[in-house]
């Protein structure tokens, strides 16, 4: 019988709680703002004996992910957390973890990348890792960060997937703000994620294998990459299935994309993460003023749900994509590129405008969202769309 406990706490502390309930064999981590309190809290659980995890303190994130790779290859259930420069420092091991098909789960507290130095939220860190072969879930709220972390583990360890997964939450906004969160009881979470059955565990000495081998000189590197592509494509159905199973135990919804007020929407904003809250609020105000506004939140960025996004936006007359990350030199931000691509196969052409917003924690005020919906209303009634991308609220 599922027991739900309602608490008032921060996103980071519930991610640590989710990790404890998932009972990882190994956590190797290095502190970095705004992630630090995740691993700090988890280390406390280890010290208190509330979880029996080998907690490895390392001297950098490069070593943290290296230790995670080694432990996961050995056959352990492995989790960790990082942010920003830490994720950047892990970059080579991110590829190694996915290439070796190691289902490591990592929370990432989204924070801007240097330079100039900044500790606040944007998605530049995670988006820089979007092609590293990890499954990537993004949370709007602390509740979703807790839920996504548990879902991510079950997806990663699924025999159809066996890929690492990232559970992203917005730095400070979600990691440090106190929110109302419903926690599941330990047995429910432990039962939900089940027991990890590693394949090719180094510690399985009766079935000895070599990890980290060479596949060059005309060898099958190409085929291994194709296998990774097939696995992440398969993972989409697994994310959906695990999300549905999670809904059954928790009563909370999970969608690859989550829509609100989209049934009859003329104008819509596509967004990732905590800003979805502001967008939803403004969409309701726009509706009160007679504009049929809707919102589409992308909760799963890898694998990207192109078909679901296109289906959600199909009836719109103008769409805005909010990107909290740059893709310098590209036509727009990462979410914009995916969204435009997703809409290409539709019969009718929908104008899509890209807004870059909130970089380095730049404030996302409600009037900025109002401005986006106002632009969309103008486009929907025949005005020309702004040419090129818009730096929303930049001086």
């Amino acid at each position, binding site marked *: 019988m599922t027991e739900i406990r309602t608490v008032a706490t921060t996103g980071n502390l519930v991610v640590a709680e989710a990790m404890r309930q998932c009972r990882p064999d190994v956590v190797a981590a290095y502190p970095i703002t705004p992630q630090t309190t995740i691993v700090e809290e988890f280390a406390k659980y280890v010290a208190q004996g509330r979880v029996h995890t080998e907690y490895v303190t390392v001297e950098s994130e490069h070593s943290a992910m290296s230790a995670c790779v080694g432990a996961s290859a050995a056959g352990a259930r492995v989790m960790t957390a990082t942010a920003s420069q830490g994720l950047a420092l892990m970059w080579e091991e991110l590829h190694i973890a996915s290439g070796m098909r190691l289902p490591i789960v990592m929370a990432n507290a989204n924070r801007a990348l240097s330079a100039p130095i900044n500790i606040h939220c944007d998605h530049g860190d995670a988006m820089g890792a979007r092609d590293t072969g990890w499954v990537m879930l993004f949370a709007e709220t602390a509740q979703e960060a807790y839920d996504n972390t548990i879902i991510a583990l079950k997806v990663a360890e699924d025999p159809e997937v*066996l890929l690492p997964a990232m559970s992203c939450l917005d730095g400070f906004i979600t990691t440090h703000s106190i929110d109302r969160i419903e926690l599941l009881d330990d047995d429910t979470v432990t039962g939900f994620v089940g027991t990890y059955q590693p394949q090719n565990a180094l510690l399985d000495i009766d079935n000895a294998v070599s990890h980290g*081998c060479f596949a060059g000189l005309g060898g099958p590197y190409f*085929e*291994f990459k194709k296998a990774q592509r097939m696995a992440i494509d398969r993972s989409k159905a697994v994310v959906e299935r695990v999300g549905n199973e999670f809904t059954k135990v928790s009563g909370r919804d999970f969608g690859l994309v989550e829509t609100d007020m989209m049934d009859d929407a003329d104008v819509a904003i596509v967004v990732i993460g905590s800003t979805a809250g502001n967008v939803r609020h403004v969409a309701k105000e726009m509706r009160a003023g007679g504009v049929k506004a809707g919102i589409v939140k992308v909760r799963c960025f890898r694998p990207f749900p192109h078909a679901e996004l296109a289906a959600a936006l199909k009836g719109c007359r103008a769409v805005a994509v909010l990107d909290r990350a740059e893709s310098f030199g590209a036509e727009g931000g990462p979410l914009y590129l995916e969204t435009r691509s997703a809409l290409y196969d539709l019969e009718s052409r929908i104008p899509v405008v890209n807004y870059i917003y909130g970089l380095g924690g730049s404030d996302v005020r409600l009037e900025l969202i109002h401005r986006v919906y106002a632009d969309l209303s103008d486009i929907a009634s025949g005005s020309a769309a702004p040419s090129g991308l818009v730096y929303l609220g930049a001086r």
Partner: protein
Amino acid sequence: MKWDISDIDSWKTDDFPLGAVIPEAGNSHYYRTGGWRSERPVRNVETCTDCLICWIDCPDTAIHVADEKIAADWLDLDHCKGCGICANECPVEAITMVPEGCELPEVR
């Protein structure tokens, strides 16, 4: 158990092991590196003290030991790639690297 890769060139993506593991321990033995050799180590049995430093340091485990001494057929020419580490590390300079001829019958 030997991992049979005889028809690896006709394998499809699904036939390769998950995550590029090699599902058989120690099968690098089947990969002969002797053909890389341009110099061959020659050991002077008179000056060799059987300290086994060369055996420890050889990166290809190409030096054989029997009864805690360097074995009579000491060198595995299928795998010695002529790096010269053994000659460099021998404390009594009992190993000399000599140019390899063009014939390497042991390399198939």
